[in-house]
């Protein structure tokens, strides 16, 4: 196991290097550049300012020099300064990462707690009314556009009934509340975006859980377990479930980039200050240091997450051993 871990961690370096080069090239392929974009259509600005800014951002230098400077700084964990407000990129990202992680993290947990049992029960009671209801319900969630559901929920819970806040992460009075008041305020603001994020993911996870469970239930060892006289509870939860969960773990692993990258749409609608909006706005404004920083950090966390997913395979499935 140890050799496996070391090997995986070492492989991260060439992987990240490759990702950074590719992202750097693609980023510069897009038409336009940040200095002109900054002051576009501002008639008081003289073109000489744009040249000044290009020199300040170092984008007038050849590409390989720009990349090399960036890489040199990265060796000291200096991700550079964001073009937008000249603040260190690492600081900007770390400001926004927790908001996204909280939302995505809670959403994944909820998904796991809701969708998996939903899918497993649907498999158990296959073709029953319950099964059909779960299918329809989750597909509605999958096909409705997230922004539309968000606005409807905001309208109902925020404006009509007034029980939940409409947008943002904290309320207008949050600064004056004691720590438990702030926590409660935060929780209230979290509910709607959490619901929307979770509802969208319900369909795929519950369907996978259902399919996976159906396959497992048909296996001979389940029949054997029943024949042995074990309780139904024991059969399902001790014998069938761990095997059915393996594809689910894959799914969770695959959803990691979105998990850390955040959802632009939900974050824009709910004014949630997360990574999704940060990277989207960075891309639109050609904020090169911020884009590179986001790419590297999201890639790093995704690779680590995949590593964790692989390790949990070996825990779930005794057949899988790493060395």
């Amino acid at each position, binding site marked *: 196991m140890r050799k496996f871990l070391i090997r995986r961690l070492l492989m991260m370096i060439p992987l990240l290097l490759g990702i950074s080069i590719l992202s750097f090239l693609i980023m510069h392929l897009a038409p336009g550049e940040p200095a002109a974009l900054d002051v576009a259509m501002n008639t008081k600005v003289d*073109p000489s300012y744009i040249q000044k800014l290009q020199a300040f951002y170092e984008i007038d230098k050849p590409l390989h020099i720009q990349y090399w400077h960036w890489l040199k700084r990265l060796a000291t964990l200096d991700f550079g300064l964001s073009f937008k*407000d000249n603040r260190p990129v690492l600081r*900007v990202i770390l400001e926004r990462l927790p908001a996204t992680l909280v939302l995505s993290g809670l959403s994944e947990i909820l998904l796991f707690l809701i969708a998996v049992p939903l899918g497993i029960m649907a498999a158990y009671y296959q073709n029953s009314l319950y099964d059909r209801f779960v299918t329809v319900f989750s597909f509605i969630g999958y096909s409705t556009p997230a922004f539309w559901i968000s606005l409807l929920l905001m309208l109902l819970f925020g404006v009509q009934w*007034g029980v939940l806040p409409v*947008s943002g992460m904290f309320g*207008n009075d949050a600064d004056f509340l004691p720590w438990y008041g702030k926590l409660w305020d935060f929780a209230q603001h979290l509910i709607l975006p959490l619901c929307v994020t979770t509802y969208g993911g319900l369909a795929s996870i519950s369907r996978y859980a259902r399919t996976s469970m159906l396959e497992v239930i048909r296996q001979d060892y389940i029949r054997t377990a029943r024949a042995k006289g074990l309780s139904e509870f024991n059969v399902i939860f001790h014998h069938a479930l761990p095997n059915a969960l393996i594809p689910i773990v894959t799914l969770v692993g695959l959803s990691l980039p979105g998990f850390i990258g955040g959802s632009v749409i939900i974050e*824009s609608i709910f004014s949630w200050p997360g990574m999704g909006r940060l990277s989207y706005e960075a891309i639109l404004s050609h904020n090169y240091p911020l884009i590179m920083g986001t790419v590297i950090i999201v890639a790093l966390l995704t690779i680590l997450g995949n590593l964790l997913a692989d390790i949990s395979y070996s825990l779930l499935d005794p057949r899988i051993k790493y060395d």
Partner: protein
Amino acid sequence: MLRNLALILVVLVIATGCAKKDPKIYDQPGPVADGDVMIESELSDAKTLNPVLVSEIAGADIDGLIFNGLTRYNDKLVIEPCLAEKWKVSKDNKTVTYYLRRGVKFHDGVEFTASDVLFTYQVYTDPTVNTPEGAQYQDIKNVEIMGPYEVKVTYKRPFALALALFDTILPKHLLEDKDINTSDFARHPVGTGPYKFVEWKTDQKIVLAANPDYWEGAPHIKKVVMRIIPDQTTQFLELLNGGIDSVGAWFHGTLSAEQYTRQSNTPKLKDYYNVYKTHSLEYTYLGWNELNPLFKDKKIRQALTMAIDRDAVIQNAINGLGSVCTGPYPYGSWANNPKVKAWPYDPDKAKKVFAKAGWKMGADGILHKNINHKDTPFHFTLVIPQGKVDRERSATIIQQQLKQVGIQVDIQVLEWTTFLSQYIEKKKFDAYIMGWSLTPDPDCYPIFHSDQVKEHQFNMVSYKNKTVDTLLSEGRRVLDQKTRQKIYWRIHTILNEEQPYTFLYIPNQLTAIHKRFKGYTMNDFDLLTHPEQWYAPKAQQKYIP
């Protein structure tokens, strides 16, 4: 357990219901009182609050409350005294002597003097400082301190915009040894204005507190919060919910045409908010590329304008919430020539002009002409930047209207950066629809002067008219309002005749303000004047600042 939960839920719902006041209380007038918080929002965050480096809307809006200038525009778009009590312009129009107000303090208590004005000038003209708007100060020859409250500014040539310069005065004592480009002043600005900076949570909110020593009188509203709400629909829902107090009053923003039109069906809007319809300081236009042989002849451009029913465009693209535009000046500005009449919607006359120019209707319903021995259909592409629904709608309506007179228009919606860098800057377009945000001054030299056609400059349609060139240069050099007015009236007449743009419309600014706020008058120019006079009567105040 479940029953207890249900009980708690019921109590919560009732409690939140009771918390809302009966809206009729806000209709009452009330005596001036201190207190309360004004919460408004913007669609995107500021990048910096250092006025020297600011180039985006949110930063400029906040700086407008934190800083003062020597002068400012009043609600009639006329320059009035601010930090300068009065000024004298020399006979040759090349020198302005400002007499500064005494007893004005920066937010940290240090007094404002003439040395701050000199320092501001030095910063704006320092080549190492990345200031976007430094070019305006290049006409200044010299700034001299004549006394602690007297400053003499000498220009190389008379400069009409001179009095509008120095619109944010920097504190010398805080910035003199610092690197302006990277100073922390960008996150912690200090000025002389009615509001002081308190905190900035990036992409969430910026908080300002009233300056109790403000020279025009301490503001009654004790706190101002600018929330960042990137989506216009969410912004509206927050307004209905009471999460924000106004849209478009203190900061840039507007209700959408739909939200305004539907207000009679939205009791939450009607009962709690005053909604105002004024004109915004901008206009939307269709630019014809004069390098394209199709649009070279001004008669063709006139005919194209006559073939477009601008009233129908306004009705359908922005629900009638706008006015037809005939020139490049703010609505109601002294620069608009009253004698200029908009080209009428007359498709028959337009057809006659096309016919006279040699265009014949083909079997495909499109006009054809033999240009350079090649049969050319009257067919062009209209490019528009993605993002503004009203422009996309306008384009579709125009496409239809031009089809009626035999012109085929293809519409292409492009992402903003691509639109700018690949099409507009490179002049690789036939026609486009965009808008201009205006300053109170009518000077439009960068937009219509024939030498402003290089990359990153603003005469994107390559318009060339020697008379207009001379008039534009003159307009910048004359200080007397009456003479300037004659100049800009003439420019208006010529532009209307030559139609380098088909000026489309000036959209309305739709502002919503919570009824509890009093003490202001809405002007037609969407300018915030005297924020320190706004107040909410004690009985109607909502927040404890």
